[in-house]
């Protein structure tokens, strides 16, 4: 038994390496660079508690004496703080790594939330049709009228009004995930719904119905595997957008609190120092954010082109 699985895996790998997808991947240096950068950033973000030279989240570790030190290659730079420090004495490099971690977490979590919600509603809407479909689609339409930012702001505003500030700060990250996720589900729902409607008309679904299978079995076993195709591409686009949205909200001051700063928060903090000459406090997190999102977008672009047989 294990022999067959081993040879099966090898066969799979062999097919993967020879596949068009991989070939397309390797033929574009830019994409490979993007993948590399993404990998580095993601890994350093995920493992930041271990990898970061300083623990910037613990107030006890920060010393005001170390504040406003420029990056190491400038005059007055300090070898301990490669990218300089901010006004509180936090090491920029570590702050960026921790911040990236938060940004990524919110990004992935909100995309996952949106996907689960959107796919479920899309399946139900597409297969059931009728009143349920109309209802869900009206709701989607109404929501689409409002840009993600607005919805996220609104939800955050509501939570802010409902919870006292301490609980709000603790739950801020989850509120973010909810807010951003809620503003993205529509895209998944619509795509899955139209795919579902297409698959529903196909004869293998009719064959399953003739056999007597109940609707829930048909949806999960037959339709779901066939509609997941475009989801990956949407997810990568959304991931970039989610990270941007979270950064924007944090920048505006309604996102994650300064106790657990994301890249957006860092940029906001640093913005005040732009004119007084300590540009590194805002520019480095800015670059990190830009590079991260750029890499995600490049991967998404390549994925979309590679998986689309028509564009070859």
């Amino acid at each position, binding site marked *: 038994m294990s022999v067959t699985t081993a040879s099966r895996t090898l066969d799979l790998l062999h097919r993967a390496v020879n596949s068009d997808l991989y070939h397309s991947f390797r033929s574009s240096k830019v994409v490979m660079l993007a993948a590399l950068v993404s990998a580095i950033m993601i890994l350093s973000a995920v493992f930041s508690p271990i990898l970061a030279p300083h623990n910037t989240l613990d107030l006890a570790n920060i010393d005001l004496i170390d504040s406003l030190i420029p990056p190491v290659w400038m005059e007055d730079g300090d070898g301990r703080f490669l990218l300089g420090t901010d006004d509180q004495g936090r090491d920029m490099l570590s702050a960026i790594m921790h911040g990236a971690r938060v940004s990524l977490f919110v990004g992935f979590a909100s995309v996952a939330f949106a996907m689960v919600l959107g796919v479920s509603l899309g399946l139900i809407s597409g297969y059931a049709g009728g009143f349920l479909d109309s209802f869900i689609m009206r709701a989607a339409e109404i929501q689409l009228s409002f*840009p993600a930012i607005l919805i996220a702001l609104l939800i955050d505003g509501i939570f802010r009004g409902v919870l006292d500030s301490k609980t709000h700060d603790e739950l801020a990250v989850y509120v973010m995930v909810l807010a951003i996720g809620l503003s993205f589900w529509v895209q998944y729902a619509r795509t899955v719904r139209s795919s579902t409607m297409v698959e529903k008309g196909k004869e293998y679904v009719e064959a399953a119905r003739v056999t007597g299978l109940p609707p829930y079995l048909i949806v999960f076993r037959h339709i779901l595997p066939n509609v997941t195709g475009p989801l990956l591409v949407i997810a990568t686009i959304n991931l970039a957008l989610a990270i941007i949205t979270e950064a924007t909200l944090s920048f505006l001051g309604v996102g994650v609190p300064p106790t657990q700063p994301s890249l957006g928060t860092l940029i906001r903090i640093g913005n005040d120092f732009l004119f007084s000459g300590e540009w590194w406090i805002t520019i480095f997190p800015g670059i990190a954010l830009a590079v991260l999102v750029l890499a995600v977008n490049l991967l998404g672009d390549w994925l979309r082109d590679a998986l689309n047989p028509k564009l070859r």
Partner: protein
Amino acid sequence: MIGFIFKRFFQSFIVMFLVALLAFTMFNFLGDPVNQMVGIDTTAADRDALRDRLGLNDPLFEQFGRFLGNAVQFEFGQSYQHKRPVAGLILDRMPATLELSFLAAIFALAVGVPMGVYTGLHRNSVISKIFMTVSLVGISLPTFLIGILLIFIFSVQLQWLPSFGRGEVVDLGFWRTGLLTTSGWKAIIMPAVTLGLFQMTLIMRLVRSEMLEVLRTDYIKFARARGLSSRAINFGHALKNTLVPVITIAGLQIGSLIAFAIITETVFQWPGLGLMFLQAIQVVDIPIMAAYLMLIAFFFVMINLIVDMLYYVVDPRLRVDSAL
């Protein structure tokens, strides 16, 4: 056709109604208007009397009715923070936001559409690759970052353009415009580009992918087989068919500019509706939040309606019944 218009109007009403409901709920359950209005040493009895006078003890749907009635007359009460009527505040700040959004929209369309068409027609040229790279960067940079970068380059380093405010404004009665003075233009350029850049790249990519899609259709192939010139094919047929879906999506995108203005106004300290809204959220100033919400909803609903009409006008398949 008429049935279609009715349906859309009906839906718009429902949307406005729901938003009003949401705004009203916020009004009533988040924060206490009375506590916001009076000083600390007002007695509880006085507060109750105030509540009565303001009609806050009446049944909910009566209050909602009043709210709706007021809303239709643009009466949103007083801002907690500014102690001034909200309607007045909105009218004050609206021109700033509208001018900004308008300029950003023009920028997005005037640059995005031609770029999209070019990259669609000349997929592999060097210029196309440059455009695509620019668009990728445009999509990857959050609006506020673009703003900060522009400020960094043009205000801090080069000192060419101002980094906040509208510059000199000219009062045209109810509308204060910044477009009639040089300093006004200098002040609006960076915010407009910042606001419009994201949309521009979206539109460019949209036009490009639609164009590529259209160029692969049978009717384009048939047009080639009939010997039509490249110009006729690319601009007469392909472009027209591309623009139909693009117009509608672009319309919606432009609509969202008004909301995205929140970010740009924050970065550039632009005295518009967005900045006002943001400040209102931070201090939980409910009347402004509610009013802004209703206003934005109204804008969106209007734009959606117009876009739907546009679709109807442009695509003959929707207008006329099929198959004689």
